[in-house]
């Protein structure tokens, strides 16, 4: 079963020529995401399952193998969630942004 991901409201974010820069308003931690992670971040609307995001965005744009790509993407999302900049649920979420 796929997870759902939404961007946390406690961040500031801007795309700098394709590289997403994110600042946590809670602890001032600064993050930069590479192109693949940026695509996942931008698609994190809380309603689209991660499996669909991986299929439609990651695999389609970066020619990745679906199973491995999903595992990597879920690992990434859990790491970002640990830092409070992404919200994860097994149910659809209301994206704050």
């Amino acid at each position: 079963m796929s997870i759902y991901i939404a961007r946390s409201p406690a961040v500031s974010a801007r795309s700098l020529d394709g590289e997403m820069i994110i600042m946590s308003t809670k602890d001032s931690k600064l993050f930069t995401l590479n192109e693949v992670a940026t695509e996942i971040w931008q698609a994190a609307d809380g309603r689209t399952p991660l499996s669909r995001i991986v299929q439609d965005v990651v695999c389609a744009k970066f020619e990745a193998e679906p199973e491995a790509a999903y595992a990597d993407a879920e690992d990434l999302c859990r790491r970002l969630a640990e830092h409070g900049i992404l919200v994860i649920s097994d149910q659809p979420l209301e994206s704050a942004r």
Partner: protein
Amino acid sequence: MADVVSIATAGTGARTSLLDRIGAKAEARGIPISVHLDLTWACNEGCVHCYLDHSVGGDMNTTEIKGVLDQLAAAGVMFLTLSGGEIMLRKDIFEIVAYARSLLFDVRLKTNGILIGEGEADRFAELGVREVNISIYSHLPEVHDAITRVPGSFLRSIEAVKRLKSRGLAVEIRVCVIKGGVSYARLRALAEELGVRIQYDATVAPMIDGDRTPVSLNISPEERAEFYADPAVLPGLEDACAPASADELMNGHSCGAGHNGCYISPQGDVMPCVQFPLVCGSLRQSSFLEIWKFSPQFTEIRGIRNRDLHVCGSCSSLSSCGRCPGLAFQEGNMRGASRQDCENTYFRTKVPTPLYPAPEIDPAPRRQTPVSSQFVPLTALLPAQRDGAHRESAAY
């Protein structure tokens, strides 16, 4: 998907390095990643050293400010500093901050804090303001209050620090070191007691309209020597001393003003920096990107490299100076040296600089560049000043 994310924590070298990389990338792509927007020059304090004339009106209204924020977000600005004057005097302050946060800006506020009560602190925390800078001038209430000319302001500012800190906001005490003296150790102890960071600035700048009266409030050479002898007042100085190759140094420039950041006045005038009051255009007449990309003033600034600097280009302290082109501009020539920077660098490095201890080189020529000659003094663009508050501006 290895290395998909870089993470850097506040206060670490890794974060400084990441911010430097972001700033360099923004500059290379012509993106103003950082903007300082003054919401008003009105203030409820009357600090003796202030560089603003609080009687100047003509502030942008809420709709205009929101329009500017839309433009800044579209231009790629991420780091937004909202300042003044005193931002809490704007009745729409929360509406502006909420709008900025809806556009995902990283919002930093500069305030004296004396109007920030429990409710205001709650609201800023809810809105996701990340950092608040509060000005404190002494650990002694009577000294601070004498500088702000508002009795009780010290205690009210300190209360605001505590309120914001208790809600998880990053609070930093900002100290402008002026004649009359602060005890660095006592202020540092106060900041530690409050659990907040502290940053000092030992340069009292001229007023934004060119009036150099506040400069007389700079600390004496003896006090400056004492200031720079205290390693705790300048954290991160080692970064400024990092060696650079001669080519890198001479092809570089001294700060990001006009390169990856700029300043916007409450009246909508765009300038390189609040300390570099060269009007490059008005947001009431042109779009932000038109001004940012095409104004002759910004174009000129971006063309200046260290090798072009009349005095600083041959100074042995150039790599460690932290030269402010705005101070040089206010002393007459953006390509020249400023006595204030020369003095600071001398006391920091103990190496004589072109204008301090004694001028050895005439910093002229002044105002000889083609675009500079077209500059309109800022005062000519400001609305008429009220009452007897007019300050005579220097002819620059």
